[in-house]
């Protein structure tokens, strides 16, 4: 087993500041960073080939580099801890077991971009994790690692936990910013991008929990070291894979980026399919990712390899489906989710998701019509790429891929007038 940055600390004992200071070299990276030139920190981040762990995979160093040096308005660093993509549950472990890694990463990030205020926007349901973060933040304040004049350097940074209240769309960064400002979490028109005008109108960087929690390692051991942990050219570090569904050992698995195929994850790390059944389908990157069939899983689970076969790594949330679960029923559930979560701003998404939900549901219940599959593809084509944010694409991708790859299952429902396995 190779070295892990996070997983080895995923237990209750790692949480207190004392453990972090004594066993994990806690807050040595922020001491080092606060004596560095800000451009050099961003340079290390660029060298690290860290790509945002929230789902889009955008290079973090480049993102930090977009922040204007001078700004009349206050700048902000915001941590996206909404973790709302179905299938994803890794950030929860970071927040409840190693909260100080995240806090220290945010201190460094804030210094690098010149922000004196930061927020951790955490999904409302994670009440326990929000409390644990509050406690850890208080510990950091008391130890002089956060707040005024951090480590005696003159740099000040205040950090506040802000709870969401149950809306998938608040994982989208501009929806999140609106929600932080006390509004409905509706995504904004871009540009301006958050780096120009984000939270409260100020230049803002929004990063995922796992991204920020890796920053102390990158500063202490260097961008090059981090980059070399990854096995592909443009994807550094380790990754936290969330595997769920019909595997024998679901959970969070930390492995070097680009080092593992979906088959290895499912059969070696998770010990195969429940009841030793056959594999039917794999959703490789959260419920928004186009589905793969059982014979498509010899692919490296990373950004480019998955993109090449028409799907995405997303938040590295891998949902495994065995042969005896009806894929039509599964797609109906996924589509119901998007119809429920569509914020309603863009007509193609608001109307289209509901139509798709209705059609898939009637197919599932045996009332489908011959022309329904063509209609589903037509609707999904009219959503994808035609909305302000990625929710539209997230709803369309599963529909297109399920219908294309499991067409026979859909046709059997339509022609037989019921679910064949019912």
């Amino acid at each position, binding site marked *: 087993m190779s070295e892990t940055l996070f997983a080895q600390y995923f237990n209750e004992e790692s949480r207190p500041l004392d453990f972090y200071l004594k066993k994990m070299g806690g807050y040595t990276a922020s001491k080092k960073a606060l004596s560095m030139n800000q451009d050099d920190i961003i340079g290390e981040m660029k060298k690290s080939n860290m790509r945002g762990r929230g789902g889009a995979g955008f290079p973090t160093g480049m993102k930090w580099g977009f922040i204007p040096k001078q700004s009349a308005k*206050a700048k902000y660093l915001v941590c996206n801890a909404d*973790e*709302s*993509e*179905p*299938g*994803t*549950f890794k*950030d*929860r472990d970071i927040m409840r077991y190693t909260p100080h890694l995240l806090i220290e990463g945010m201190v460094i990030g804030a210094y690098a971009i010149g922000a004196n*205020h930061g927020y951790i926007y955490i*999904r*409302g*349901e*994670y*009440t*326990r994790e929000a409390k644990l973060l509050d406690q850890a933040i208080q510990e950091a304040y008391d130890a002089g690692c956060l707040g005024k004049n951090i480590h005696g350097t003159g740099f000040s940074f*205040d950090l*506040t936990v*802000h*709870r*969401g*209240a*149950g*809306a*998938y769309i608040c994982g989208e960064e501009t929806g999140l910013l609106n*929600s*932080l*400002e*006390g*509004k*409905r*979490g509706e995504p904004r028109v871009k540009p301006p991008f958050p780096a120009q005008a984000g939270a*409260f109108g100020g230049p803002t960087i929004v990063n995922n929990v796992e991204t920020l929690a890796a920053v102390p390692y990158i500063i202490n051991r260097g961008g090059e070291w981090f980059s070399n942990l990854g096995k592909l050219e443009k994807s550094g570090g380790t990754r936290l894979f*969330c*595997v*769920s*569904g*019909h595997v024998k050992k*679901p*959970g*969070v698995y930390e492995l070097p980026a680009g080092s593992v195929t979906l088959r290895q994850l499912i059969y070696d790390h998770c010990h195969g399919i429940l009841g030793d059944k056959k594999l039917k389908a794999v*959703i490789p990157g959260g*419920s928004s990712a186009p589905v793969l069939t059982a014979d498509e899983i010899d692919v490296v689970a990373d950004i480019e390899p998955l993109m090449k076969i028409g799907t995405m790594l997303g938040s590295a*949330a891998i*949902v495994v*489906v065995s042969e005896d*679960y009806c894929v039509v*029923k*599964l797609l109906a*559930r*996924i589509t119901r*989710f998007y119809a*429920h*979560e569509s*914020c309603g701003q863009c007509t193609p998404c608001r109307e289209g998701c509901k139509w798709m939900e209705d059609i898939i549901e009637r197919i599932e219940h045996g009332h489908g019509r011959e022309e329904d599959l063509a209609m589903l593809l037509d609707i999904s084509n009219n959503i994808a790429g035609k909305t302000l944010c990625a929710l539209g694409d997230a709803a369309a991708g599963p529909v297109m891929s399920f219908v294309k790859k499991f067409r026979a299952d859909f046709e059997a429902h339509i022609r037989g007038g019921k679910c064949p396995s019912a």
Partner: protein
Amino acid sequence: MGKKLLSEKFYKSMEKLESRYPSKVALLLPALHAAQEEWSWLPPEILDEVGAYIGVHPAQVREVASFYTMYNLKPVGKYHLKICTNVACCLRGSEELVEHCEKKFGIERGETTPDKRFTVVEEECLGACGTAPAMMLNDDYHESLTVSKLDQLLDHLE
């Protein structure tokens, strides 16, 4: 406005939070959470009081509160069961849990028992997919559930 319905504790905690944001409107979500903690739901007069405190129109409070599923705009039972039925949980048998609750309490999903003890709702992804099926009972997570584990939990409630 008449006598305040929200406690002194509510107002103190909001005052403390105020310095953390450059705008008072940003307190809206935290205020609604704190108000709901005291009232278990958000009746109209509470929404109005929150609006008055923050300095926004009552309609703006409703516009925001109704966007988020965690704010209860209708009364809920003493025990609010939010069972995740999203992708990972449905693969792991969450439907069975919901149906079991419906039968056990004699209500449909989304409803509250006549004695106001239990509300059962289907929830979207709770971010606990590795320990599916999962549910929230009020503020607490319960994971890797089975029908018998759920029964054990429910039968031990007051």
